[in-house]
């Protein structure tokens, strides 16, 4: 056992080194931001900044509220309508909202709901009435946030619904509960904790939302802190203002992360329970649930369908020959591949160190093991406190201090941002899975005296491969679709697909933009579906 103890103690090292590197990076970034402006006045916050802050919180609050209400209704309907054909495909499709590039979603929503969108055209044709440009402003921001987050929330909540023991439903049925009583006594107590953690995650995501507000915000009245930072750096060259906004946002997001404490996103892969709940719904409730599923499916699928329809009309022979497209494509693919490999490696090592510190028969009795564990978790969740634009500003200032080719700085900045962005999700999937494997097989592995490599080959990999594949695909898609960091570093020399698409949209090359949006959508969905298969399909069942 002593030999194993030493071995485990040594295996803390890689995770600890990664954690230290990440924390040092955060410190350097913070220090760079803080020391870059000598005359930074914090005692005075201008009315404009207050307005920005107010709107940022307001839109995040409303987005969270609507996303949760819609997500809850959808999850409730899906949980009780478990028998219709194509349900598992639908649930898998809703799960993909997590990885859909936000710019694609915005593009699709504009095509359907925009001034010249499908809805307005149909309304003009049928009733000679147009709803106008309602999509630009708070309305559009909320619609896009609900689109992305309600489906994410519904997936997590559906998982909670499915975790309710079937006996509870049988008991409620035999006690003659109504649908409302069933919800209050059986379902709500299980959903409540999940709801709180999802709410805090969605609020953080909407608080730091960038691409959606940038494109749909419309006017400065609908700017958030994140977009104002971007405008201060990129358009006004007002670094002092950008820094002030960045530090305010940094302070607030750190506070939010600390308050929400346990970032557990309850991410699970695409599988869903097939066992139906033993409760035949009343006819009116059944129609209500089916109606909710139908309406949300329409809301979710139409923008994606619009991208496909519009995209198919694009001139691909022209797009595929554009030098900037080719450059953007290879940069995006290269960065996505690299960052998903690094994310996977970091997540494995951090999760391994974490399980060493939280299992009784491993190193839980080490002094300060709990504190150490918290530090490991915090370093993996840094992105929640330091969103990519703030990180970008830090890199921007560093690139001015230390001379190197801009392409090199850009690559490092994008890779760092992509890895940090994926790590919280990667850890929330891998850490519990690795902990379970250790709990189950440690004794056997120790008694057989297997080496680290043998352990991976015979125990860890067969049980973790489905989670590893899912994490790899998530990281790949996150990286592929991000428009945060590239918004600061993007140029004709250094471009990614989302940045290229944004440029096309800005220059009103709608046909080319449709084509690029379709290419990005196809790559993202294919990566999300097929990359996990590289890891060898289904994992060994628990």
């Amino acid at each position, binding site marked *: 056992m002593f030999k194993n103890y030493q071995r485990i103690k040594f295996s803390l090292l890689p995770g600890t080194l990664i954690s230290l590197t990440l924390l040092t990076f955060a410190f350097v970034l913070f220090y760079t931001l803080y020391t870059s402006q000598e005359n930074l006045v914090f005692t005075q916050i201008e009315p404009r900044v207050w307005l920005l802050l107010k709107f940022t919180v307001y839109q995040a609050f409303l987005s969270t509220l609507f996303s949760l209400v819609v997500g809850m209704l959808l999850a409730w309907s899906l949980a009780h309508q478990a028998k219709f054909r194509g349900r598992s495909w639908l649930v898998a499709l809703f799960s993909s909202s997590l990885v859909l590039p936000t710019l694609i979603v915005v593009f699709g929503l504009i095509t359907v709901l925009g001034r010249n969108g499908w809805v307005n055209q149909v309304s003009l044709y049928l009733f000679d009435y147009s709803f106008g440009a309602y999509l630009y402003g708070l309305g559009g921001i909320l619609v896009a946030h609900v689109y992305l987050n309600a489906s994410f929330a519904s997936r997590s909540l559906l998982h909670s619904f499915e975790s309710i*023991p079937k*006996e*509870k439903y*049988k*008991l409620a*049925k*035999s*006690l*003659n*509960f*109504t649908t409302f*009583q069933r919800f209050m*006594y*059986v379902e709500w*107590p299980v959903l409540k904790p999940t709801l709180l953690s999802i709410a805090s995650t969605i609020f953080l995501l909407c608080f730091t939302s960038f691409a959606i507000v940038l494109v749909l915000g419309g006017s400065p009245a609908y700017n958030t802190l994140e977009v104002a930072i971007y405008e201060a750096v990129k358009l006004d060259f007002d670094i002092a203002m950008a820094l002030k906004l960045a530090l305010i946002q940094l302070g607030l997001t750190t506070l939010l992360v600390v308050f929400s404490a346990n970032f557990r996103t309850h991410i699970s892969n695409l599988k869903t329970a097939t066992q139906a709940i*033993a409760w035949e719904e009343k006819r009116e409730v059944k129609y209500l649930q089916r109606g909710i599923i139908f309406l949300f499916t329409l809301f979710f699928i139409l923008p994606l369908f619009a991208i496909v329809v519009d995209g198919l009309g694009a001139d691909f022979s022209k797009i595929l020959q554009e030098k900037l497209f080719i450059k953007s494509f290879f940069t995006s693919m290269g960065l996505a591949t690299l960052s998903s490999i690094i994310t996977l490696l970091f997540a494995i090592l951090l999760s391994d160190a974490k399980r060493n510190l939280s299992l009784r028969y491993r190193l839980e009795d080490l002094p300060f093991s709990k504190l150490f564990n918290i530090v490991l978790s915090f370093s993996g969740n840094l992105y929640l406190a330091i969103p990519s634009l703030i990180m970008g500003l830090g890199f921007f200032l560093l690139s001015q201090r230390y001379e190197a080719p801009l392409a090199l700085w850009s690559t490092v900045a994008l890779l760092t941002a992509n890895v940090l962005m994926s790590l919280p999700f990667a850890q929330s999937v891998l850490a519990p899975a690795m902990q379970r494997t250790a709990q189950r097989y440690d004794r056997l592995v120790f008694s057989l005296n297997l080496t680290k490599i043998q352990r991976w080959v015979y125990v860890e990999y067969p049980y973790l491969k489905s989670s590893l594949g899912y994490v790899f695909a998530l990281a790949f898609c996150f990286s592929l679709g991000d428009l945060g960091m590239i918004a600061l570093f993007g140029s004709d020399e250094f471009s990614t697909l989302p940045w290229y698409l944004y440029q096309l949209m800005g220059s009103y090359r709608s046909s080319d933009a449709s084509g690029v949006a379709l290419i990005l959508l196809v790559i993202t969905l294919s990566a999300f579906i097929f990359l996990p298969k590289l890891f060898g399909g289904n994992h060994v069942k628990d």
Partner: protein
Amino acid sequence: MLKISHLEFTHKDAKHSYTYTMNLEEKEIVGILGESGSGKSTFLDLVAGFSTSSSGSIELDTQVLTQMSVEKRPITILFQSHNLFEHLTVQKNVLLGVSKVLKENIEDVNKVQGILKEVGLEEYEHTQVSKLSGGQQQRVALARVLIRREPILLLDEPFSGLDIATRLEMLDLVQTITIENKIHTIMVTHDIEDCKRIANHVYKMQNNTLVEQ
């Protein structure tokens, strides 16, 4: 008398088909034994109305239960676990047996207090059930059986997770409740000792058919 005649259930895959027949007087307990997956719990699901039989009938005295919906059947069911709402107190869990709105009607509250005394839980009335031991939780579930006063009680291995002493105590409590309240009790179990202790009749699942031993 509870009369179950040629009750038949066929699985969706059509590979398994079970047949059940039994008669049971009030104040009597039937023990049902069988391997895992032999169709014991399916039988309880059929009697309770969670599953539908393809043929056969269930009658209680003159009342035909076969076509009745779950909530209308005069039945209380107890599982091995998940019999309670953990976030509610003992009192509210028992009260749910008679009132779904959980309004504290003096008459009902007095009734609950009396029943909690019967099952030895009077001092836990306002305790959240998640803070009770496994045995105490099953007592709360039995208290709800008592307050509902339904003539049929179905037990799906309700005490198999408990230690021996508590388990025997709970079995005796079931017997007392059955006799004093004139209940027809059907108990599915793995353990023949449970049957020996309290069952008036023992049945076993053999070749997908319920057979009296």
